[in-house]
C-alpha cells in the first residue's frame, strides 16, 4: 500500500510520531495489529532492504489517517525520521492478530518504553467499550515517557515509573503494578521482553488473564519466511511454534515460553 505522510513529528531525540493517510488501511486495521513499513523513499536503493514492523498506534476512521509511534534504533528508523510531510510512503496492509477487547471491565495496560505504541489504539477501543483503564507506563528515563497527554484523555488513571526516577516513581513499572493487581480483570502489555515476562508471571500468580504483544525480527510479515517464530504451550502443555507475524503479535502471556523469545 502507499500512503501520504500527514505529519512526522519529533517528540524528542529518541521518539517520533508519524501520521499517514490511507483510507483502505484504516478500514482494515484492527487493534493490536502491526504493519511493515518501507523506510527508504526510493525503490532503486537497496540499503536498507527489508521493511520494518511497527504497531498501529492510532487510527482515525473519518480522515483515513493512522499513526505509528517509533523509537530511533538503527538505519531504518533514522531514515523514517527524515520523511517530510507530503511524502509518499510504502507499507503492508494491517497484519497479524489483534487484542481481545473486553467490555465494562477493570483493565490494566502495562507499557514499557516504545511498547506504549500499540496500547494507545487499544486504550481508545477499550474506552469505547466502557472499560475502566489504568495505564502503567515505565521507562528508563524521562525521555522515554512520551504521549502522556494523549493517554490522559483516554484512560482513567496513569502510573509512571522510570528506572532513574527522573519522571514518576523511581523503579520498575511492575513495582506499582503488582501492588494493585487485584483491581483488574484483564491485563494487556507491550514492551521489553523482561517486562512482559514479569507482568505475565504476576498475572498468572494472581489468576488474571494477560495478553502480550511481542516484537520479533521479521522479514516477510506474512508467515512465509519463518523468521519470527515464538514458542508457546498449547492447551495440552506441549511446546508449539507460532509465527509472531500471523499467529501473533498478540499472545496469551501465560502460554509464552519466555526463554524462546529473543527480541529485547
Amino acid at each position, binding site marked *: 500500500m502507499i500512503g501520504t505522510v500527514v505529519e512526522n513529528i519529533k517528540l524528542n531525540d529518541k521518539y517520533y510520531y508519524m501520521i499517514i493517510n490511507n483510507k483502505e488501511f484504516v478500514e482494515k486495521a484492527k487493534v493490536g495489529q502491526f504493519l511493515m513499513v*518501507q523506510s527508504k523513499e526510493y*525503490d532503486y536503493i*537497496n*540499503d*536498507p*532492504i*527489508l*521493511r520494518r514492523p511497527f504497531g498501529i498506534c492510532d487510527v482515525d476512521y473519518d480522515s483515513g489517517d493512522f499513526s505509528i509511534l517509533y523509537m530511533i534504533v538503527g538505519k531504518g528508523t533514522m531514515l523514517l525520521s527524515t520523511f517530510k510531510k507530503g511524502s509518499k510512503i*510504502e507499507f*503492508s*496492509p494491517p497484519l497479524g492478530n489483534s487484542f481481545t477487547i473486553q467490555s465494562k471491565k477493570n483493565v490494566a495496560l502495562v507499557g514499557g518504553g516504545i511498547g506504549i505504541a500499540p496500547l494507545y489504539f487499544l486504550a481508545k477501543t477499550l474506552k469505547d467499550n466502557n472499560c475502566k483503564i489504568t495505564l502503567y507506563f515505565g521507562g528508563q528515563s524521562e525521555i522515554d515517557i512520551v504521549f502522556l497527554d494523549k493517554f490522559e484523555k483516554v484512560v482513567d488513571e496513569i502510573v509512571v515509573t522510570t528506572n532513574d526516577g527522573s519522571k514518576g516513581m523511581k523503579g520498575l513499572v511492575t513495582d506499582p503494578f503488582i501492588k494493585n493487581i487485584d483491581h483488574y480483570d484483564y491485563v494487556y502489555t507491550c514492551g521489553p521482553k523482561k517486562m512482559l515476562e514479569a507482568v505475565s508471571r504476576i498475572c498468572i500468580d494472581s489468576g488474571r488473564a494477560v495478553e502480550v504483544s511481542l516484537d*520479533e*525480527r*521479521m*522479514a*516477510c*510479515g*506474512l*508467515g*512465509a*519466511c*519463518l*523468521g*519470527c*517464530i*515464538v514458542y508457546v504451550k498449547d492447551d495440552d502443555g506441549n511446546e508449539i*511454534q507460532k509465527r509472531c507475524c*500471523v499467529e501473533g503479535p498478540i499472545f496469551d502471556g501465560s502460554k509464552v515460553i519466555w526463554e*524462546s*523469545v*529473543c*527480541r529485547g
Partner: protein
Amino acid sequence: MSESLKINLCGVEFKNPIITASGTFGYGLEYANHIDLNKLGGISVKGISLKEVKGNPMPRIMETSAGMLNAIGLQNVGVERFIKEKLPALRKYDTKIIVNFWGKMLEEYIEVARVLDEEDVDMLEMNISCPNIKEGGIAFGTDPKMTYEVVYNCKKVMKNKPLVVKLSPNVTNIKVFGKVAEEAGADAISAINTLLGMAININTRKPFLSNITGGLSGPAIKPVAIRMVYELYKTIKIPIIGIGGIMSYRDVIEFYLAGASAVQVGTANFVDPEIPIKIIDELNNYLKCNNIRNISELTGKVEI
C-alpha cells in the same frame, strides 16, 4: 497473457519465467491474500524433507547491507503433510509448482524424490546446500562426488517429473558442480543458493543468528550469482534458472544475458510482495519496446 514471456523448461510450459524462490514464499498460500498467484510463472515452495523439521532456534534472520542473513534451519511440515495440507490448495492456482526438497542423508533425498514424483507437482528442485549428517556434515553441494551420487540416485527413482538441481555458491568452482549434476541426469540447474555469512551484534557480542552463520541473499550477492550463471552457461547444456538478488526486470534481463532460461525471485518478496508481478509487467513492456518476440532469445546473449 503474453506470448513473449511463455517459456518451456524441461517440457513444462510456464506462462512466464518468474518463479518465486524457495524459502521466501512459504507454501505459496501465505501470499494468496496479498498478490494474485495466478500471475506467477511458478512457485518454488519451502524446502521439503521426509519428516517435519522444526528448524533452528531464534533469532533466525538479520538484515545486512543490501542483503539479509537467514538460518531458518529448513523448517517444513514434511512431505506427507505438504501433500495433504498444502498442495491441494496451492494447485487451485494457475501456476507451476516446483517442490524444493532435501534430506539429511542420501536415502532421505531418494525417498522424498520418489514420493513427490508421483504427486501433482510440475518439477522437483533438489537443494544440495544442506549438510549430510551421515557424512559428518559435509554438504552434498560442496563435494562433486556426493553431488553426483545424490542427483544420480534421485533421478533413478523419478519417472515423471523433471529434476532441477540447485547449486551452492560456496564452492571454489561452480562449473564442476554444474557438470557433475548434468552428467548425473539433472534436467536443469538453479543457481545460486545463499552465500555463507555471519554477523555479530557488537552490543551483546553475540552472533545475530542463533545458528552463528547463515545464508546471505539479496542484491548484495547478485554479482556473484551473475558470474556463476555465466560460468555455468559456458559449461553445461541443460537450462539454468538464475537466482540471486533480483529486484527488478533489469536484473532478470541481466540473468538472461548471462545464460539463464528462467529466474527465481527471493528476498525481493519480503521487500514488497508485488515485486514479482511488477517484474512480469515490466518485462512484457521491455520485450515489446525492444521488439523481442520471446524472452528466451536473450539467454546467454551477453556480448563478450
